[in-house]
């Protein structure tokens, strides 16, 4: 039987992997995917806590409701984000972060 700590660890690991993706990758779309992974990892934490906080024998659904909101937000974010990326690609023909350094200093 997996314990709460194991779930927390797995989610933490996933979260860290997402962060690694953000740091390492240069393709904005992949970076964006990594960010989604981070959100998903956070969801896992929530669900795990929700499941282990038994509320009168049932999982605490407040947490799962929050996951629902996270997913919605993520979807909205992805939509807007991809729109911006597309607009950027139209303007600059690139989605490489290294090309986005016209403002600095």
């Amino acid at each position: 039987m997996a314990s709460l700590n194991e779930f927390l660890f797995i989610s933490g690991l996933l979260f860290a992997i997402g962060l690694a993706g953000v740091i390492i990758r240069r393709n904005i779309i992949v970076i964006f995917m990594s960010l989604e992974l981070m959100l998903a990892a956070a969801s896992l934490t929530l669900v795990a806590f929700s499941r282990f906080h038994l509320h009168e024998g049932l999982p605490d659904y407040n947490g799962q409701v929050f996951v629902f909101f996270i997913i919605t937000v993520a979807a909205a974010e992805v939509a807007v984000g991809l729109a911006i990326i597309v607009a950027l690609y139209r303007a600059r023909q690139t989605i490489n972060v290294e090309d986005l350094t016209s403002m600095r200093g």
Partner: protein
Amino acid sequence: MHSIAFYLFALLAITGGIFLVAFRNPVSSALAMVLSFVGLAGLFIGLNAYFVGIVQILVYAGAIMVLFIFIIMLLDLNDEKPVKFKSTTVLAGVIIPLLLVVQILGVIQSHNTGDEGAFKKITASSMAISAKEFPEDSAIHKSLTHPKSPKLPDTNLIGHAIFTRYNFPLQIMGVLLLVATMGVVILSKRSSKKAS
């Protein structure tokens, strides 16, 4: 949740995550992400969060990933250029997350969850207790107190929470989706007359 299933799905999720970061081709990354999300969905379901698990598959693996792949295809993206990863970046990208994991481990270790941290099954009796909060003719009550096979009606329960207690955030969420839609339209529309 059975340990084996847990480890399987966990491995799936993490492998998917690592592939997502490691694959050079964005499409491969996207597919790796689907893999990871499938693993996550498995974990959700193992945690009796059926609704979330399904939504994870539907929304993420289904809608969002499709969107990603669609955009990748649309923009006709190739691999990242051969002069790939700068070693310092990679190093930073490995060390920082590793340290983060260490910190998370430290936090986890700091506090023995004890009894609460152990996985407890949801029994029919506990479901029956909870059922008292709901009207007897409601679907939730019926499902929880089903004489033969009481099932956790988690979709109903979440829906109940969202539309009663979480009504207000839900309204805000509606506005959020509206704005997102607007944004997508604004950002991707072409001007009627091309700027000279």
